[in-house]
């Protein structure tokens, strides 16, 4: 109990003190996970919708694979990206290893299957609801993708947030490809791992509370955006 109290005190001290190192670490966490999320959404949302609406041989297998990839261990993704971006690897010439770019690539690979699998489910359910209506308007399934994505946007919101949560909370991939370099690639989760290995458990847990606070703030902001959007359109909540 004593150490929990110490952890709260450490978290409070970090937040109140607006420690510049902490701000940089939080900023980098948001930048890396936010960028990988945008990239994952650009691909995962349309791909998920296409998978929901098209029929082709092996489709079930693809769905099983994409669903399974949601469980990819981050450290495995980290190792793959490391081997590819290493100087001795095929893309070593880019010089991305141990930079935020490598971390974005790793998290992008990690969360694209999540965005894709969950959006496939959302769109498939919507399609079941609207198939007749859209078909009567002469819309083929593929042409219905933008409409369905737009219609399902509030449910897809949660999908995207799930991807963000996975990215911002993982340590296995970013520590391998980023290297946890101070003032360069250190993010919230790798900082927590570092303090744990120094045995400074209250500070590690305090950082954990800060991370939790950041996640709550991001989700609250997203909920606010969603509410404002819904109100402007005079629409009822859909999810």
């Amino acid at each position, binding site marked *: 109990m004593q150490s929990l109290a110490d952890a709260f005190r450490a978290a409070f001290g970090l937040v109140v003190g607006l420690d510049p190192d902490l701000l940089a670490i939080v900023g980098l966490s948001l930048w890396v996970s936010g960028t990988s999320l945008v990239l994952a959404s650009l691909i995962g949302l349309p791909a998920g919708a296409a998978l929901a609406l098209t029929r082709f041989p092996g489709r079930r297998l693809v769905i099983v694979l994409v669903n399974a990839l949601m469980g990819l261990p981050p450290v495995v993704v980290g190792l793959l990206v490391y081997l590819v971006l290493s100087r001795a690897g095929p893309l070593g010439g880019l010089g991305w290893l141990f930079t935020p770019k490598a971390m974005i690539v790793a998290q992008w690979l990690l969360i694209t299957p999540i965005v894709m699998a969950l959006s496939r489910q959302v769109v498939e359910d919507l399609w079941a609801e609207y198939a007749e209506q859209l078909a009567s308007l002469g819309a083929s399934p593929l042409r219905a993708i933008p409409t369905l994505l737009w219609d399902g946007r509030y449910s897809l919101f949660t999908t995207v947030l799930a991807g963000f949560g996975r990215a911002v909370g993982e340590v296995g991939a970013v520590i391998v490809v980023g290297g946890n*370099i101070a003032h360069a690639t250190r993010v919230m989760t790798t900082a927590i791992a570092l303090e744990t290995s120094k045995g400074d458990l209250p500070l590690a847990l305090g950082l954990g509370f800060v991370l939790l606070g950041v996640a709550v703030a991001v989700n609250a902001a997203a909920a606010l955006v969603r509410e404002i959007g819904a109100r402007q359109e005079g629409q009822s909540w859909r999810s």
Partner: protein
Amino acid sequence: MGLIRLAILVTSLGLLPTAVAGDDPVAITIASTTSTENSGLLDAILPRFTARTGFGARVVAVGTGQAIRLARRGDADVLFVHDRASEERFVSDGFGVERYDVMYNDYVVVGPASDPARIRGLSSVEEALRTIAATRSPFVSRGDDSGTHKAELRLWKAAGVNPKPASGSWYRETGQGQGATLNVASGMGAYMFVDRGTWISFKNRGDLELLVEGDPMLFNQYGVVLVNPEKHPHVQAEAGQAFVDWVLSPEGQDAIGAFRVEGQALFVPNARPGKPEPATPGR
């Protein structure tokens, strides 16, 4: 507008820390060990290197084995680790230019205050290990091919004990770094072989205490090697060489000797005199 707004929100949040994400123009990557990073040594001395030479430095802190593998693949400019045999092989295999002694510290054996194997105060680390094995007292090993792990294995061999068959019973391998392994030792009241620097700066000791120290076999030498630019042409040879020169120079050696944690010096500089002064003074 939900998704678009979210995208805008996320992107604008992301734009804030571009300064953080940017790369320094010339910053070397040093592959080093958890003992130098976790103790705070590199944080303390690198700003002085940067002030002297104008070169930045970034540290990837992993076990010695992993650090050497990183450097072999060309993912670091300088290697700063503590396993002489592997460092010399690194150089003789052509991956490093030359290896220099930089500093040393020593290993110690820590364990629970209750000391079930009664090793406290023994002057021979071999005897201590034999006693731990004979009493089957819990012992936590790094088990991760790090410099500390290799040193531990050498001592078991010298003590004439093969702990491998006991793996999973009294001999437990965590496969993790020094700090994470100390957390395990502290949690289960086990003995552990650890370097003094990590031990002194470690905060979650629980009821672990320092039990065996001072045996000459516990000496731990650190070396520095510039990764060979002929092997990996992108290696920042000038900046990397500047670091090697600086850390061996009187200024670098003083910085190492002056580093203290809780009033104790953790590393003793021992570069051989006659090394060149920093190549680019006052740059």
